[in-house]
């Protein structure tokens, strides 16, 4: 098909502007992370006066970044793993059975998407405190409390997407497995899960990213030992000054694993969205 010249011009100019808009913060992040402190405390410059890796060394000493990092990893990975597992079971039930309360479950799960997070924050905080007082098991300030909270954040979207995905898997496959003598759980494990791999990976990425980026609950539900990166990174700012080069270096360090993982798996995310959400 032929494209007109004006269309090509619009495409080149438009996409170039969008690329600049997208990449500007990334450029600032990388280049400022390589600057000495005197550079970032004056007027901005596009090129560092001299390139130094010192900020990447200092970030681990100025604040306990390693601890925050491991907290974030533990919380996000656990939340994503549990969320995916629970969503698989729930979606399998919704997709393959017609049971009483099915519609109610779907509506409840979907509607939690629209609730402002702030609505749950205080009650959840109070409930966690109360559970702690009653049982001696401190959920508030612990990583477990945060894991439980985060896993439910991604759960509605995960269930919604996986139900869509499971529905696209022909039921003939289930039937075949059944003829071969497989029970429902066996069918789930050896037929449905393998066939739905892109959707499951997509849901896993989404859950992980939701947890990795969350700040509202982390700001209230953590203490010094359970603090995640989302809250910890603020500590590079003191009353007197901000170590902007370290902030940028740390932002880069916490971003790289997520971005690399995301870009490697984005194919699955697009596939997952196509089959699950877009139906």
């Amino acid at each position, binding site marked *: 098909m032929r494209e007109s010249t004006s269309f090509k011009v619009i495409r080149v100019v438009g996409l170039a502007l969008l690329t600049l808009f*997208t990449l500007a913060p990334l450029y600032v992040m990388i280049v400022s992370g390589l600057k000495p402190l005197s550079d970032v405390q004056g007027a901005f410059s596009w090129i560092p006066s001299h390139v130094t890796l010192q900020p990447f060394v200092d970030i681990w000493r100025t604040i306990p970044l390693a601890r925050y990092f491991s907290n974030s990893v533990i919380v996000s990975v656990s939340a994503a793993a549990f969320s995916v597992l629970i969503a698989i079971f729930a979606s399998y039930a919704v997709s393959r059975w017609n049971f009483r309360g099915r519609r109610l479950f779907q509506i409840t799960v979907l509607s939690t998407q629209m609730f402002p997070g702030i*609505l749950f924050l205080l009650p959840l905080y109070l409930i966690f405190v109360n559970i702690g007082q009653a049982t001696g098991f401190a959920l508030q300030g612990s990583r477990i409390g945060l894991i439980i909270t985060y896993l439910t954040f991604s759960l509605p979207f995960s269930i919604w997407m996986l139900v869509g995905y499971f529905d696209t898997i022909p039921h003939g496959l289930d039937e075949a497995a059944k003829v071969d003598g497989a029970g429902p759980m066996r069918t789930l494990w050896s037929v449905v899960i393998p066939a739905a791999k892109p959707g499951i990976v997509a849901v896993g990425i989404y859950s992980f990213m939701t947890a990795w980026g969350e700040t509202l609950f982390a700001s209230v539900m953590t203490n010094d030992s359970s603090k995640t990166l*989302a809250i910890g*990174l603020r500590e590079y700012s003191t009353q007197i000054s901000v170590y902007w080069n370290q902030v940028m270096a740390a932002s880069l360090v916490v971003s790289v694993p997520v*971005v690399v993982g995301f870009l490697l798996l984005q194919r699955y995310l697009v596939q997952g969205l*196509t089959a699950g959400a877009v139906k």
Partner: protein
Amino acid sequence: MTATDNAVREGRRAGKGSAKTPRRRRVAQNRWLPYVLLAPAIIFELLVHVIPMLTGIGISFLKLNQFFLRNWVEAPFAGLSNYRYAIDVNGSIGKALLWSFAVTIAFTVLVVGISWVLGMFAAVMLQRSFRGRALLRTIFLIPYALPVYAAVIVWKFMLSRDNGMVNHLLAQLHITDGHTFWLIGNNAFASIVVVAVWRLWPFALLTLMAGMQSLPTDVYEAASVDGAGMWQQFRKLTLPMLRGINQVLILVLFLWTFNDFNVPYTLFSASIPKSADLISIHVYQSSFQNFNFGLGSAMSVLLLLFLLVVTGLYLLFTSRRSRRA
């Protein structure tokens, strides 16, 4: 059991032609299994969403401040007074809440609108293959992949008055003198819109790209044989075929933006400028900085009611339109 199974199977085979056959499978066996499979999801939903929501509604009728926090069940009953304060636009609390609500509406409309336009533009531009398409697609998705606080911290640095890249660039281009305050005063609103759009539009792009992959190409070929230009093809083919996706996408973008906490919290820290006093931050501050938890809960409940009404109307309106179409 076999008889029922066979009947079910026969029924399915008969109805195989249409995709929307009512689901009546394996009803006879394993009546309890779906509930077992759902149990973990239900338990966690109850613990983290349903029970806290009911508790929150309860708290909104209490006079709950920091003195009763440890023993909140003993906080004095406040009746409807929290709600009265929240909606009394003559009082300072109600006036501030109304202002914050208006700011949030303006913010949400702008962010969702611009994000959708940018996402749609890029999705159409990337629809056909050309050299560098895969690379561009990857670049555009990076803002979505970055952890939100890390990305917003970078913006905070870029927008800072004396060390920021934005002022430097504007001065180099001779647009301003390079001494603009971007994070306080009225400019803060523009700043937060730009940052939120930067974060959000890739999601619109991702969803629309996924949607466009499922569009049949032969329709476009037929249209261009008939002499339809790019703009006509977009209006007459792409937009109508993507209607369902757009409806879901815009609703999701609306809810996420309206409830957004991460972006304003990271961009402004504790001192939120009045021009960018978004509602989730406003409620957060009423609760956790002014220690008026009952009032904060009442505000949250009002927000929830608003979102329920808007979402309900939206779903009603869009489903009726698509039924007519």
